[in-house]
């Protein structure tokens, strides 16, 4: 009892003494009324108060004999200390712009969830979205504006900037705004005003560009956007190098749609997914049929597919050349399926090549998918990067034709393929202003840094897909002396720097008229703010489906011509990809994401050169051997990873690593692969690299080191046929006889069901659990030692051959066994069973014998090998008062030497029961959601009460696919699994 208190106290302060959070509570109170603090003075006070909170937290760390409790000066209305308040906003984690609900406790955002009201994205989120709340409390964020690297006041900066802009010269100033894709219509309107007023040119830059797809769409359908793909409507999905479930365009929405088409309980005809890619991606690992191709083959595959479809259509072969791709069999199957499902099929392609995209559009058009699965009338506005404009800008800068450059949400000094050129060009720009929230690679070179708010601190809106609008509102007063980018723009435009008012006004003018429901704008606004999402009725009215206009035959011809080129011997094509966790590296300083195991490789903390097993044997490479990749002017050194299913012609490297100025956590991790982007996807001769061993060895921090199921019945996989055959009866007879008399049943019997067919392995649940349950980050070395602390892990197994493996994933958390082996062995009763079926772990009783860990057949228990909170050896979020603000006050932070594990979110269960109690009822099915369930875009996890026969869980537990892992041991798990269905053309034998 004695020791833990020393450091729990700080958490206790953060937890029980929310009353300290004077500032945020005032703001939260105002939030509740949907207002915004008007006077700047008020906002200053709030931001100052932001610091006082941090200060309070620091003081809280000191162990005092007596605890202080500081009440409010004035109790804000509508908020109660210790009670959650939820705000709807829009995610700024990536360009997808998912709707979010943010849980704030005592004015402190501590958890984000998907906004179930959003028609597009539903209640799910991705790992990155989950982790954004931690970025808010990132100590690397700038605490105020900088002028030439030195802290300055906003007034100085504004004066300097405005002076420069209004300096009367011979010619008007040539201003350029270089920004990431801006989803907000209001923001775009504001920029439009700049362009008119100040002749500002807006260049949109995306490190991982989908410009080719957009240009092809423009050429093919006359729409300058990326089509909105509807995976839910497709019964056959063919993807070429598009990781749409993991990183491509809008993963959360796509995962949700994709899973909806693969529920045998809902429709017998589950979709078939055929995938062509170079490295085994999250999406590829879910495919029913997957073929490894070299990046240079993307065009050839698309072309071959087109020819097959064209033949079936009787349109004749568009080109008269020999077929050059190796994947003929798969292509035949794909073509047959696509043809069978014309109009209900979908071909997507991630190639960064115009012609390939044209051909893919042609295929979809020939199949009649346009307007059905490929929506070009209400296209996606999520990715608007323009490579040519960017290249042009760099050239102009170099020539000194740019007077002022505003950098907004971009970091080209790191992620531009020719970063050095950009850096050189920057030197020729008289004034560069970065709006970055931290001193990243680019901001460090800028004259002025005017830190933007974190999106959880800022107002904003978004239109991710045409006519799907969502609002973003602050959930906390700015922690630092930062200013919303839009406010800066307004300020320099000479307008009152109040983007909130601007936003309201914009919505009043543009969106309010598009609805009839509300009589006054305030009502409309309050509802929109409350719901977070708004989809005007008129948006749904689909116009006549577009027809293919562009000249796709010439593209086909060009592809055919290109396909001939040969690969030099001993050379490998560079293939650059994004990882699910780190993406383009913007969140590289987020420890949750760095420690999130890659869904496929299970490696954390750094990138690596992925090579095929055959190549590895040929070159004598084992995982962890540092290899050097040479491609003319480019040379990278990084450890190798041997990946089943990798194309033998390609070596794949993830971008997002090798940051030099990410911050304490992310700097110096891995190697920067962006320089390779220039070569990626081009023809083999352009993209070729050599692989040589350096002789050094650098073990990778993988959380799973054995990849075969060893013939054990752990993850069950069946074919759709089998499902029909033995429908109704469960494979295993229910609980084997027990020596013990059953204990009297309590009111509830909590349990869980995991649908292995819906689960894609995206690992969002891992981060969600980490955020919900204060799971510590342990760092690269400890992960290497096999000590990661995640309460839920995604086991990944391969079956089949090394070159063409089938992948199986299985979320594994505490199974809450009815006859739990961990319980009888604990000498001090630190883990016992609750009346309602939970396997409870009592941290404060645990003395740490680890006997339970040894006796757990599922190995889901996690031991606190060290003090992970407030320990400089583990300098992650839990080591700083700022970072600790993200901790969930309802969950104890565990001390050194105690065991912990999945509690089935017992704090949520208790809260749900209490809520029901307060309303004098019992919890209904669905009232209580675990963190992993709530986050899952595929809705693969269902929590519920097995005692309630009507509950969804009880239904699923009876499913024909239902089984429990290792149930033959008699552990009687309360977690049920539903077998994976592989809808493979050869009946599940792939």
């Amino acid at each position: 009892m004695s020791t833990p208190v020393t450091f729990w106290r700080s958490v206790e302060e953060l937890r029980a003494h929310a009353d300290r959070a004077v500032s945020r509570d005032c703001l939260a109170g105002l939030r509740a009324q949907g207002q915004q603090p008007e006077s700047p003075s008020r906002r200053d006070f709030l931001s100052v108060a932001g610091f006082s909170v941090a200060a309070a937290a620091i003081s809280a760390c000191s162990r005092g004999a007596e605890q202080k409790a500081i009440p409010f000066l004035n109790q804000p209305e509508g908020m109660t200390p210790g009670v959650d308040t939820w705000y709807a906003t829009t995610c700024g984690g990536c360009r997808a712009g998912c709707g979010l609900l943010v849980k704030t406790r005592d004015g402190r955002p501590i958890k984000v969830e998907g906004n179930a009201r959003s028609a597009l994205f539903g209640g799910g989120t991705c790992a990155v979205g989950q982790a954004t709340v931690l970025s808010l409390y990132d100590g690397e964020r700038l605490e105020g504006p900088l002028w030439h690297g030195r802290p300055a006041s906003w007034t100085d900066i504004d004066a300097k900037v405005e002076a420069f802009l209004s300096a009367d010269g011979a010619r008007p100033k040539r201003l350029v705004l270089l920004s990431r894709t801006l989803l907000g219509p209001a923001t775009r309107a504001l920029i439009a005003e700049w362009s008119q007023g100040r002749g500002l040119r807006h260049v949109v830059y995306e490190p991982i560009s989908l410009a080719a797809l957009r240009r092809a769409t423009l050429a093919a359908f006359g729409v300058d956007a990326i089509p909105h793909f509807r995976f839910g409507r497709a019964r056959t999905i063919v993807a070429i190098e598009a990781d749409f479930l993991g990183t491509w365009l809008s993963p959360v929405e796509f995962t949700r749609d994709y899973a909806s088409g693969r529920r045998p309980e809902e429709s017998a005809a589950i979709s078939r997914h055929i995938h062509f890619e170079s490295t085994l991606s999250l999406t590829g690992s879910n495919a029913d049929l997957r073929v490894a191709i070299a990046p240079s083959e993307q065009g050839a595959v698309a072309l071959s597919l087109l020819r097959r479809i064209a033949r079936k259509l009787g349109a004749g072969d568009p080109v008269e050349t020999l077929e050059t791709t190796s994947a003929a069999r798969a292509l035949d199957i794909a073509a047959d399926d696509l043809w069978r499902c014309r109009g209900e099929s979908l071909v997507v392609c991630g190639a960064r090549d115009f012609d390939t995209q044209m051909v893919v559009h042609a295929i979809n058009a020939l199949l009649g998918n346009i307007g059905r699965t490929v929506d070009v009338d209400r296209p996606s506005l999520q990715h608007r990067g323009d490579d040519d404009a960017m290249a042009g800008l760099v050239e102009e800068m170099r020539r000194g034709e740019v007077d002022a450059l505003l950098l907004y949400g971009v970091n080209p000094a790191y992620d531009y393929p020719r970063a050095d050129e950009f850096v050189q060009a920057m030197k020729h720009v008289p004034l560069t202003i970065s709006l970055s929230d931290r001193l990243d690679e680019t901001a460090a070179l800028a004259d002025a840094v005017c830190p933007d708010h974190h999106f959880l601190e800022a107002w904003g809106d978004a239109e991710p897909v045409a006519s799907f609008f969502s609002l973003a509102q602050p959930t906390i007063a700015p922690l630092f002396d930062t200013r919303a980018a839009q406010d800066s723009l307004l300020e320099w435009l000479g307008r009152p720097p109040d983007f909130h008012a601007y936003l309201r006004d914009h919505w009043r003018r543009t969106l309010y008229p598009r609805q009839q429901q509300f009589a006054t704008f305030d009502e409309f606004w309050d509802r929109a703010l409350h719901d977070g999402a708004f989809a005007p009725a008129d948006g749904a009215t689909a116009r006549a489906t577009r027809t293919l206009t562009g000249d796709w035959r010439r593209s086909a011809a060009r592809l055919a011509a290109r396909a001939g080129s040969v690969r030099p011997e001993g050379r490998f094509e560079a293939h650059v990809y994004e990882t699910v966790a780190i993406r383009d590296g913007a969140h590289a300083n987020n420890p949750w994401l760095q420690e999130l195991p890659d869904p496929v490789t299970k490696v954390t903390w750094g990138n690596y050169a992925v090579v095929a097993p055959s190549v590895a044997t040929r070159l004598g490479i084992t995982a962890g051997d540092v290899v050097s990749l040479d491609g003319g002017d480019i040379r990278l050194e990084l450890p190798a990873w041997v990946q089943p299913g990798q194309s033998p012609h390609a070596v794949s490297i993830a971008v997002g690593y090798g940051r030099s100025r990410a911050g304490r956590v992310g700097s110096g991790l891995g190697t920067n692969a962006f320089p390779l982007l220039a070569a990626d996807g081009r023809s083999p001769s352009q993209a070729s690299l050599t692989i040589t061993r350096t002789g050094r060895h650098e073990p990778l921090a993988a959380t799973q080191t054995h990849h075969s199921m060893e013939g054990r019945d752990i993850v069950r996989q069946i074919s759709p046929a089998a499902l029909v055959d033995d429908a109704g009866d469960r494979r295993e007879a229910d609980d084997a006889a027990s020596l013990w008399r059953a204990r009297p049943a309590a009111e509830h019997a909590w349990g869980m069901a995991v649908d292995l067919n819906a689960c894609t392995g995206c690992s969002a649940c891992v981060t969600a659990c980490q955020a919900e349950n204060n799971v510590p980050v342990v760092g690269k070395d400890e992960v290497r030692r096999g000590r990661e602390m995640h309460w839920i892990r995604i086991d990944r197994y391969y079956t089949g051959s090394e070159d063409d493996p089938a992948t199986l994933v299985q979320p594994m958390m505490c199974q809450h066994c009815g006859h739990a082996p961990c319980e009888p062995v604990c000498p001090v009763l630190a883990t016992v069973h609750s009346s309602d079926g939970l396997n409870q772990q009592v941290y404060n009783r645990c003395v740490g014998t680890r006997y339970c860990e040894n006796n757990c057949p599922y190995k889901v228990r996690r031991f606190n090998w060290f003090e992970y909170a407030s320990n400089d050896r583990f300098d992650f979020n839990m080591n700083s008062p700022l970072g600790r603000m993200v901790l969930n006050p309802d969950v104890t932070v565990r001390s050194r030497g105690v065991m912990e594990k999945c509690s089935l979110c017992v704090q949520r269960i208790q809260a749900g029961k209490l809520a029901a109690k307060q309303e004098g009822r019992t919890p209904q099915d669905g009232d209580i959601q675990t963190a992993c369930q709530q986050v899952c875009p595929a809705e693969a996890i269902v929590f519920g009460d097995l005692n309630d026969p009507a509950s969804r869980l009880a239904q699923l537990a009876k499913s024909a696919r239902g089984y429990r892992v290792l149930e033959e041991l008699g552990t009687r798990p309360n977690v049920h699994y539903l077998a994976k269905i592989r809808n493979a053309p050869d009946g599940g034998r792939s």
Partner: protein
Amino acid sequence: MRAAAVFIALAAAVAPIAVALAAWELSRVGVHQGYAPIQPIAFSHKLHAGDYQVSCMYCHWGARTSRHAGIPSLNVCMNCHGLLTRQTTDIERLKEAVQQGRAIAWTRVHNLPDFVYFNHSQHVIGGVACQDCHGPVQTMERVRQDKALTMGWCIACHRARGPELQLARQATLGRGDPHAPFPGLDCGKCHF
């Protein structure tokens, strides 16, 4: 022989007493019964809650809906003291604090260990009187921790009231096994 008997008798008598004392001492570690710190403002619960019959929930309104009963914000004090003319040095200090916008740092009297989740509203709804855990606050000039607030103390009450609560609940629900274990005794009720 006699001497030996005396010696052994002594040993036999002393040992158990020593053990009992040790056990008692161990069991009192971290128990602060009777803790009554001096507060920055000598607020008298006897006067307010006792003599003037101000309801507990008027100031500690959080107890109805939240984990925390909460310490009233100064504007709650001023609801009355803004009108009342009576002045004492302590009231002076209060008003001064309000004017200067200074928060008052009260000293917490009832400190549960950090690994215990206690929810006031849950107990208020359950019909537990404030005095059951906080003692006769309405008679205290300076608030004192009246109960031991040990786990054993909590459990004693949960055991005593559990069954009747359970039966009542099952009656309202119309289902449930009367022999079912009382969830209020689960570890996970307070420790997570």
